[in-house]
């Protein structure tokens, strides 16, 4: 144990204990002692700036908890994620329609996507879909209408939620059936698979506007091209070469479709894409935002091959499919295999993803809902043991903290070992084409969505002019699934973030938004973040260091302000005390909100990892930015607590969850 950490609640000392300096501290000093003096002779400012001493000091603090807690508490993703009745389409399933002479065969002899090789064929198996005629658009449709098709839902189910449909697909069934059609003397129409996804609003009117489908009819979709649309094939014929998104067609015909039924966003937006998962399999997905006015039905259509009218040219052939999934959110998560699963309103409402507001009112920021395990109005998170303090640690929690890495093959590399800060930036627009998974997520987190650049390349390959429509795209942000990642609320100037402690997540009491006075377990409120109000915490959860104090001139390590981030003060004063004090004000809202996600048990001080930062292509000066932070950090010291910083209990008058106070963290390093 080295150095010391003090935690204060006002003038009350809550905790004082030594910390642990990790190997990174020694590595930093070795960095300092061996950086090349020759850099000073280089005129390039970015190069000579490597020698700035601020690049080698403490620059951030972060917080975390045990690894298990990253899949529990408000991080918990509902077990009933897949809302389809069956994840393997069957003719006996009334949600399923096989249309226009499509040839459907169960193919348990075909290996599924690699990550599901262990799944017995009795749970799920591969199905082939073949279009062997040019007489029509053969298709597989899956649909869920209220109170039919094994659904126990009403119009409020899924309202104002992002809903995502997906399949695993593999092309072709037979190479010999691949018949490219010559469109002109110089172009060929190569096969493509069309995955349409429509959300029907309550009160949709197909007569408005004339032409493109009607009011309240989303008609989204993702079209996968199995080879280039130009003259020269760019793929091997069995891999996606590009894709296009159907929302662009909708956007071209005005906004009537989007605004007539109380949608909380302008125009139809869509997330979508197709990404490889191995062994020739890809996952195609399409997601859209359901209207506030209510949902009357959901309809997903898969045309395995070809599309006769747009552009012209019939292509015959077939694809394999596996694992149909319909779920809440903007991104597909890993398969939740279903066999005869009925769904109800609460399955479609989710927990943290649910919003509830009237058309025309301010959009709800989203509400985190948790069930207090002990039936009180103070939330006690579920935690297990953290990894023990270890000088070899490179992060505040060594265990696997990758919630979405576990639950999604689309979204990976969120395993940062600490609490993330994704919620305030969930709507962040994407990169140059606004088509993230991808570029936007690269900006959201330094590590990101698998094959992100590939997705950009593919969508751009089909439609170079795509960027014109990027404002209407829903691909360019992380979306509501950011609430699964947590862990800090928005600042007060953006309304903070709502929370509710509820007695259950499967009845209407959980979604009332007001304390009803009859349920002692129901408490709601709003938490405001200090660090996000000051924009001093990046999306990865690093709180930036600011030189708030006046080193060398202050006495008693006085800080001029600790509310803007991590501050440093004290040190080399007249008494040469050799003490450096880092201090940070952790706001009541930050403590309370992160407690819903499992609390705060660990913290760490970080320096800049110059080597990694330079290797990532970032050159100094390293200006801190919460969205696009160029800094890579190296852990300097850690502190593991045995008690949750967010622990609180009711005091007999006020609910504990509404009674948090600001905490001041003082972290002292003694050099003498």
């Amino acid at each position, binding site marked *: 144990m*080295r150095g010391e950490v003090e935690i204060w609640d006002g003038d009350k000392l809550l905790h004082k204990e030594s910390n642990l300096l990790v190997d990174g501290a*020694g590595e930093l*000093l*070795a960095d*300092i002692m061996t950086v090349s003096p020759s850099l000073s002779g280089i005129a390039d400012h970015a190069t000579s700036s490597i020698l700035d001493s601020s690049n080698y000091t403490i620059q951030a603090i972060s917080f975390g908890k045990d690894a298990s807690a990253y899949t529990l508490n408000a991080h918990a993703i509902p077990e009933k994620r897949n809302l389809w009745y069956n994840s393997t389409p069957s003719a006996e399933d009334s949600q399923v329609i096989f249309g226009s002479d499509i040839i459907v065969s169960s193919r348990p002899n075909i290996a599924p996507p690699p990550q599901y090789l262990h799944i017995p064929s009795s749970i799920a198996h591969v199905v082939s879909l073949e279009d062997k005629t040019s007489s029509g658009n053969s298709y597989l449709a899956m649909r869920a209408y209220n109170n039919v098709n094994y659904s126990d839902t009403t119009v409020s189910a899924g309202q104002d939620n992002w809903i995502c449909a997906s399949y695993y697909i593999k092309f072709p069934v037979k190479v010999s059936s691949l018949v490219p059609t010559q469109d002109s003397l110089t172009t060929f129409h190569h096969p493509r698979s069309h995955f349409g996804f429509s959300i029907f609003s309550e009160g949709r009117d197909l007569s408005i506007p004339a032409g493109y489908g009607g009011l309240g009819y989303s008609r989204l979709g993702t079209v996968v091209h199995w080879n280039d649309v130009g003259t020269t094939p760019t793929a091997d014929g069995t891999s996606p070469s590009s894709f296009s998104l159907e929302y662009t067609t909708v956007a071209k015909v005005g906004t009537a479709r989007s605004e007539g039924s109380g949608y909380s966003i302008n125009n139809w937006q869509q997330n979508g894409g197709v990404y490889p998962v191995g062994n020739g399999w890809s996952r195609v997905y399409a997601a859209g935002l359901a209207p506030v006015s209510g949902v009357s039905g959901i309809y997903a259509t898969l045309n395995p091959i070809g599309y006769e009218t747009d552009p012209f040219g019939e292509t015959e052939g077939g694809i394999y499919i596996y694992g149909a999934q319909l779920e809440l959110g903007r991104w597909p998560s890993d398969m939740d295999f279903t066999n005869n699963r009925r769904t109800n309103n609460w399955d479609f409402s989710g927990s943290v993803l649910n919003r509830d507001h009237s058309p025309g009112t301010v959009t709800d920021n989203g509400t985190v809902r948790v069930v207090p395990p002990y039936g009180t109005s103070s939330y006690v998170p579920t935690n297990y043991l953290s990894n023990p303090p270890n000088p070899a640690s490179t992060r505040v929690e060594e265990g696997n903290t990758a919630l979405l890495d576990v639950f999604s093959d689309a979204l990976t590399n969120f395993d940062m070992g600490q609490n993330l800060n994704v919620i305030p930036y969930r709507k962040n627009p994407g990169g140059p084409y606004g088509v993230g998974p991808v570029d936007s997520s690269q900006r959201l987190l330094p590590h990101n969505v698998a094959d992100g650049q590939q997705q950009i390349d593919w969508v751009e390959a089909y439609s170079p002019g795509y960027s014109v429509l990027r404002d209407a795209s829903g691909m360019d942000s992380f979306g509501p699934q950011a609430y699964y990642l947590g862990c800090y609320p928005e600042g007060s100037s953006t309304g903070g973030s709502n929370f509710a402690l509820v007695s259950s997540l499967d009845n209407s009491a959980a979604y009332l938004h007001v304390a009803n006075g009859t349920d002692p377990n129901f408490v709601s409120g709003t938490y405001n973040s200090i660090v996000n109000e000051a924009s001093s915490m990046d999306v990865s959860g690093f709180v930036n260091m600011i030189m708030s104090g006046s080193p060398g001139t202050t006495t008693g390590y006085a800080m001029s302000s600790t509310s803007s981030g991590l501050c440093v003060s004290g040190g*080399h004063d007249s008494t040469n005390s050799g*003490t450096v004090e880092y201090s940070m004000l952790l706001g009541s809202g930050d403590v309370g909100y992160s407690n819903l996600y499992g609390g705060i048990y660990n913290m760490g001080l970080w320096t800049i990892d110059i080597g990694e930062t330079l290797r990532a292509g970032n050159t100094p000066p390293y200006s801190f930015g919460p969205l696009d932070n160029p800094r890579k950090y190296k852990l300097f010291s850690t502190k593991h607590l045995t008690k949750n910083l967010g622990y609180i209990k009711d005091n007999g008058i006020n609910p504990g969850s509404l009674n948090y106070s600001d905490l001041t963290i003082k972290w002292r390093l003694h*050099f*003498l």
Partner: protein
Amino acid sequence: MKNFTEELGINGHLTIIKQYTDGQEEVVFDDHNIIVSGMGVGLTYMFTGSGSNSVLDYQIDRFQVGVSGPPTGGATSAIYQLSGACTLAEYGAGSNLFIAVKDQITNNTYTSLAAAQIPANKRTRIGDSSVRYTLVVDEEACNNISRPGTTESSINEVGLLMKNPTGNAADRPLLVAYRTFSNIVKTSDFSLIFRWTLNF
């Protein structure tokens, strides 16, 4: 509570080798060293942002040898200068060493003292957190030193200095590591090689 440098585990190891002109080598000393309080002072300047803005000023880039070790009161971490650091003249005019006389920080005062430069290529990172300094007192350096009252002074102490942690316009070095050893009468028959490894 232990201080930072103790807790961090900063330690060092010094090997002194006589290298004769015919290539023979003789290890005359092989032991740990003392990290003195100056290391903590220098790092405090660094981490509070109250010292130099250049990381180069916190590097150990010079050394001293002396003839009066061990110091009165023993070799402790409170040492801030060598007991009898060699003067500019004592390092020898014919030596390859680059000697500079600077105002060294000595317990809140400054003392003008000579020190030899450690070339950058003699400061080698040998591990994630280990740096080796190779100090060469060549055949022409520090020979036949004679202080008043003695006919032949022996080299018996050595120190490493941080360049200029306060960021003063003219370098003000700071002693950060120290070691005494058995008397070595330096002659032109051999070079003295100090192989000094610091583990941070």
